[in-house]
Structure formats: structure tokens, C-alpha cells
């Protein structure tokens, strides 16, 4: 269940909404109480463009419980254009080969769903190869 723990992250997960530090302008994701760059209080909301590049990636073939029905899937560290890096699945890869440095864009997808299809579906950011040139 754990609905509250996921619900409180809806905004950031659905749309990659983070923060911009009012003191040093650093773009922050995920939102934090303290700016990791300058140590000031971080609180101003900032919507990321969702554009970034693959920093590294791995293909998960042996997934933990809750994800085993989605294997194989690719997880990447994505360096967002605005600065921070995030960990997320790559999706809609088709037959495209993933490469470090590949431009990607954020999409909102199902992240996790119980096999019995009784619980809440968790939606959140994933990335796919950029569609438009």
C-alpha cells in the first residue's frame, strides 16, 4: 500500500518538478530542504524541461520482487540539461541501441503495479530517445 509515501511525491514524479535554490540559482532534483550546492534553504519550485543525456545505463535482467514481470528493462543515470542527474528507466527503446551521451526526454509512465492489480498504480518519470529532431 504505502499510499502516503508515494502520494507526497506525485508532483515531482509525474512531471520532474524540483527546486531552484533562491540563494545560488542551482537547479535541484529531487527537492531537498537544503541546497546541495550552497547549503541555503531550498524551497522554490522548478519544473525541469525533461531533456537530458544518458550518463550511464544498465539492463536489468534479474529484477527485485515487484519488477520481475517487466524484465528486461533499462535503467539509466540521466544528466538533465539543467544540471542534476536522476536515476530512471529508459522506455520506448524499440530496437534502438542505448549509448552513453544519447539525448533523451522525460515521459510519464507506469513505474510499478502489483501483479494482482489490486493496489495503487505508481506513475512517474522515465526517459525515452528524443522523438523530435
Amino acid at each position, binding site marked *: 500500500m504505502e499510499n502516503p509515501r508515494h502520494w507526497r511525491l506525485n508532483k515531482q514524479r509525474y512531471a520532474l518538478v524540483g527546486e531552484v535554490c533562491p540563494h545560488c540559482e542551482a537547479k535541484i532534483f529531487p527537492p531537498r530542504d537544503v541546497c*546541495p550546492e550552497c547549503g541555503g534553504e531550498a524551497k522554490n519550485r522548478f519544473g525541469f524541461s525533461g531533456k537530458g543525456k544518458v550518463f*550511464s545505463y544498465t*539492463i536489468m*535482467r534479474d529484477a*527485485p*520482487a515487484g519488477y520481475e514481470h517487466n524484465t528486461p528493462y533499462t535503467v539509466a543515470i540521466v544528466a538533465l540539461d539543467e544540471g*542534476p542527474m536522476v536515476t*530512471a528507466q529508459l522506455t520506448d527503446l524499440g530496437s534502438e541501441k542505448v549509448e*552513453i551521451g544519447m539525448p533523451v526526454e522525460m515521459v510519464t509512465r507506469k513505474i510499478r503495479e502489483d501483479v494482482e492489480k489490486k493496489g495503487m498504480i505508481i506513475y512517474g518519470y522515465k526517459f525515452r530517445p528524443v522523438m523530435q529532431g
Partner: protein
Amino acid sequence: MTDVVVAGIGQIPVGDHYSLSLRSMGVQALNKALHDSGDLKPDALYIGNLLGSTLSHQANLGALFTDYARLGHIEAYTTEAAGASGAAALRVAYLAILSGYADTVAVLGVEKWSDVTREEADALLSQELDYDYEAIPGLNSAGEAGLLMQRYLYEYNLPKDALAGFPIQAHANALNNPNALLRKSLTAETYASAPMLSDPLNLYDGAAYADGAAALILTRRELLPKNFPHPIVRLLGSSVSVDALSLHDRRDPLAFNAVKTAVESAALQAGIMPVYTDVFELDDSFSIYAALTLEACGFAEKGTAWQMARDGLLAPGAKLPAMTMGGCKARGNPIGAKGVYQAVEAVQQLRGAAGPNQVKNARIALTLALGGPASTAIAHVFDRVETR
């Protein structure tokens, strides 16, 4: 300053102990260590464990183990630092003696893994990641290592099998360790044809998780029993350092900065340079962790540690003997107990009791346990006291 010495060591083989409970495993290791110490009476027990409260539904391990090991109503509790939990318990024990608060302390590293399916256990182990921002997107510990390995191979333009030397060395060493999980050699061909776990990380790049329990008895040197039968091994340095929990929150995920800080600081306390180490029980939970560790410690230039493994420089008789009893890869990875196994193995080497894998004239040993991908790094330096 008082000399803190390791009076007793004990371990059970790492494996699938279906017939042993969490408590039985821990008590067996404790009893062996107590017996080895000449039946010292500890004032405190510190337990390294990660999964007890979730996988075994058992917390409050201090009360459990003091009761079942019949240690009396002494101070006892668990330390948790993911895969470095056992090393954290060792550090707390060391500090307790140094502070003057305790004289003799027992350290227990214990982990029960085999009671649930691998997928269930793996999901619980994902607690060592940033749960909301790494585990929920579908990553696990092997996936984190896969991300690091991919980036490493990319930055240094290396072939997929570059890291093969680490598991090959670990397997060779485990052949001579009766407590090891995987006592069979690994060939380069077998490595190269192994199935992928988290590409480019293959089956042999990740240590198998298993049940395990190991224990140490620390005391002040002057409290050792008369006619103490073993060479005296001192604990000279202990340091813990941390990095960002998530890989994505590090400026350079390949840097393993926590390893560098912990090892340098522990060595400084011990009054040695890391290069003086005769034995290095490093954390090869994943091959890439071993490579990044050697580079962070300055044993190899960035992008070259894999050559040390390939060229046999980590073998028991070579330049930097590492993973001497099989490492995590072949001795097995008992997670929260790992750090205590490493200390037990370091003491075996310094006592000259390591059997066929004995490093000749081993005087200084370094252990390093990692929680996650060096999110936590805990280093300890031991030496053998030269007897008259």
C-alpha cells in the same frame, strides 16, 4: 593509549543454512570466537546486521543474542550501515574499548538470506539504495554496479571482460577456504560466456549473497589470558566515511571518495601508508567495486586497476594480496556480516593461520567494507605484534 587486540575469531561457512536460524548462526560464530579467545567475558556485544528486521522479522538483536549466547545482561545492540554493518559493529567495539567504557567486547556479524526467495530478498536488500529515487525506478544493488561498470568501460574504453581478473582471483583463493561458498575455480572462458545480470555486469561480476555469521572478541592487550596461544593482532586504525546515498548525486560516481577518505584516515591512525599493507581484504561485492577501490586508494591509476587483477598482482604471493580467502565473490557475500568475515580473515593472515593462502610474513592487514556503492566505507587496519 591502550592496545586493542583481537583475542578471538570465529566463523561459520558462508552458505545456504536452511537448517540454521538467524540466532543459531550467530550463537555458533560467537561461541567459536569466545572459545578462541580463551573464554574471555565480554562487557558488550555489537551486532552488524542489515536484513534481520525485514527478512527475518526480527529486530532487537542485542537482547536476542546476549540471551541465546548466555552472555548475561550486557550492553548489546545492532549497528546498521548496509553492507558495512559488520564493520560498523567492529568500529563501535573499538571505540568502546578506547573510550575506557568497556574492556572486552564481542562483535558479531550475522545475516540470514536464504529464508525467502531471491527476488524477495533482493527487494529487501534494495533498502541500501535510495529507495524513492533509485529502487522505485527499478534499480537494485547489482544494477547500481552495472551503471558504474558501464561508465567505467566507457570512460577508459575497455572491453566487456576487462574486470574478469577479479572474480578469477577470488575463485582461485576460495579453493583453499573451507568456509567459502564457491570452492571452484573460474576460467576466463567461463567468465566470457556468462549470462548477463545487469549489462555489462555478468553473473561472475556479482558476489552471491548467502547466510553467514562471524565473530570477534576484542580486548585490551593486558587482559589477554595467560598463555594466549596465538600471535597477538592489534587493531590500529578505524575509520568510516560516507558519500551521497544515490550514485546520481555524486559529481563523479567512479571516484569512490568515501573509500579514499576511510582508508587514508584509518592508515593515518595506524601510522602506516596504505601501500605498506601486506593483505587487503577489500570489498568485491561487485568486480567494479574492487577496481574503483584500488584506484581510490591509490594502488592503481584511474582506469588501470583491472590490470592488477589481470596480471595476478592481487594473488597471495604477489604485490598486493587481496580477497585472500575468496573475497565476497567466492567466499560469499553475507552482507551485514561481511565486515566481520573480512576482519576474521585478516586476523587469520596476521596470525599465520591462513593455510595454503597464507601471505608470507604478513604484518599489516587492511580491511574495507562498503555499504552500497561506497555510500558508506569503513576501513580497519590491523597489525601483528612482533614477539620478542
